[in-house]
């Protein structure tokens, strides 16, 4: 069905995950993410899949760990405090090189904070809130459509690299309704086929000698020399991903841009509104919107800087986190300004416009 439907972001990502072949989903309720779990509880039985409301976020991520070890497309979701609880598990899954999709519908923090949209989990998402050297691919949607489209993308990337893909959404995108068009649902045969790509390493029914195998899913290696090799292999994968999987959107990028904005997700949408307004007034402001937060589109940002650009403006719904990556990208070539909101507040297009005018 290529018809558009009007849907909440949380429901759209759930539906898209089902269509992408996700048949196992484990999660614990939390606002503003609960519609996702509620949708799954309703639809999973209809497609013959499994939904378990786990006793906690920790149990959920470890159920994901187990199911992923069997080579299946599996997902969990939560919001900020719940994602913090999953950090140990995410580190394990990463260490064991397993594919998995995790959705974070970010809310205001730190602590219990509030349940309004925020981007305060950027550091956690991109730097790994868990222990040890690992990376997750981080996708940041800015519309309901994109949120939905990220489900198949996330599963494909997860499978391809045997990596955790984190979709970093927020309360606004999770709660709002927009028209959305879904990709066709995978057939049961296609899903079966997807599982087979993992047969060389995943746990599955076995045979007698001589074809008896013994698959081990783990992240432990007591010999530091061996562990070092394993981690260096992870690094190779990360380097490969940094080469090939960077995604971003250019908005109004042109040679006469005076200011280059960098913003993602909800902050980027609002920035676009402001840019449109300013355009009417004859001012040329460009925006690079990272779609992958890791790997980060550093090169794209560097290239978008032209002779007219006087300043970079990073816009985030936090105290300034992605700004590190922007600064790293431009290596001191230009001053980097910042506009932020915290506590679940969202800046308005008017406020962004005013900020840009101020620094123009």
């Amino acid at each position, binding site marked *: 069905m290529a018809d558009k439907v009007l849907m909440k972001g949380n429901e759209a990502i759930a539906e898209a995950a089902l269509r992408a072949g996700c048949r196992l989903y484990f999660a614990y309720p939390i606002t503003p993410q609960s519609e996702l779990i509620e949708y799954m509880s309703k639809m999973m039985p209809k497609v013959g899949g*499994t939904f378990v409301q*786990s006793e906690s976020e*920790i149990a959920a991520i470890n159920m994901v760990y187990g199911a992923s*070890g069997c080579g299946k497309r599996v997902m969990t979701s939560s919001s900020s405090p719940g994602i913090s609880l999953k950090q140990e598990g995410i580190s394990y899954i990463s260490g064991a090189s397993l594919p998995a999709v995790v959705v974070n519908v970010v809310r205001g923090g730190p602590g219990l904070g509030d349940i309004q949209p925020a981007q305060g989990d950027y550091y956690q998402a991109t730097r790994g809130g868990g222990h040890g050297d690992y990376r997750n691919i981080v996708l940041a949607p800015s519309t309901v459509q994109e949120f939905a489209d990220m489900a198949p993308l996330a599963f494909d990337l997860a499978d391809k690299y045997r990596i955790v893909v984190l979709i970093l959404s927020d309360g606004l995108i999770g709660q709002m309704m927009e028209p959305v068009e879904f990709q066709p649902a995978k057939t049961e045969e296609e899903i079966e086929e997807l599982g087979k790509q993992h047969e060389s390493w995943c746990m599955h029914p076995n045979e007698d000698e001589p074809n008896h195998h013994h698959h081990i899913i*783990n992240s432990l290696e007591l010999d530091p020399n061996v562990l070092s090799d394993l981690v260096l292999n992870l690094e190779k994968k990360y380097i490969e991903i940094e080469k090939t999987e960077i995604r971003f959107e250019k908005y109004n990028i042109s040679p006469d841009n005076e200011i280059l904005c960098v913003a993602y997700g909800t902050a980027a949408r609002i920035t676009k509104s402001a840019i449109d307004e300013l355009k009417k007034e004859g001012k040329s402001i460009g925006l690079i919107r990272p779609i992958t937060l890791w790997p980060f589109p550093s090169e794209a940002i560097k290239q978008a800087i032209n002779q007219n650009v006087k300043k970079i403006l990073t816009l985030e719904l936090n105290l300034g986190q992605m700004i590190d990556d922007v600064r790293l990208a431009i290596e001191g070539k230009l001053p980097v300004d910042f506009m932020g909101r915290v506590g679940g507040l969202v800046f308005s297009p008017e406020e962004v416009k005013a900020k840009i005018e101020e620094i123009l």
Partner: protein
Amino acid sequence: MEIIATRPKSLTKAQFTYCPGCTHGISHRLVAEAMDELGMRNKTMGVCPVGCSVLAYNFFDCDMAEAAHGRAPALATGMKRARPDMHVFTYQGDGDLIAIGTAEIVHAANRGEHFSVFFVNNAIYGMTGGQMAPTTLPGMKTTTSPYGRDEKDIGYPIRACELLATLEAPYYIERVSLLSPQHVIKAKKAVYKAMKFNKEERGFTFIEFVSTCPTNWGYEPMKAFEWAKENMLPFFKLGVFKDKSIEEEGK
């Protein structure tokens, strides 16, 4: 002549990394024997805990996953739900199962997940060097209860079987011990039963092994058995705490 007892096929050829006389080896063998006898090996996935048996994936010759500390029942849930056609077991120590993993075991049991749990209760944290466990006996000295466990301050040992038996869903719960060959023979029957129920998809099965840790208790293996018989068995009573097959089969 015919071999009447030798290494089961469900064990790999690797040497166990356990200390001499450690009962982990015995419980490993019992689980492996059950897999052999029930012809389950090729359709079984096990889960190792974090604890001395963390390397059990090197010992059981079936597919194995290594869980985060305490989370084996959550992994097992994910595995069994992902592959209902396979059989799943976890193998866990007392710190793993009833300290950090309390919520996971209670809820897996409560959901009646279709897998078996083998629980090695040696009243101590073996792997990390002998700290107090939730099952450490009152007065028992460990590296973190240097003056003896003070039950007034930190409570009594937890009895996992009794606790889980308050739940509706579990199918079979038994506590056995490994403190003598006779105990082991009984334990073997319980393990077999659990794995058989597992194979037959009857529900959640749970076997607790009253075990020893000669190294951290600071006793020779035989002395450890004696100590355990005298001190652990009175507190951790052996027996069947739940067996739904009795009603089901009307016996």
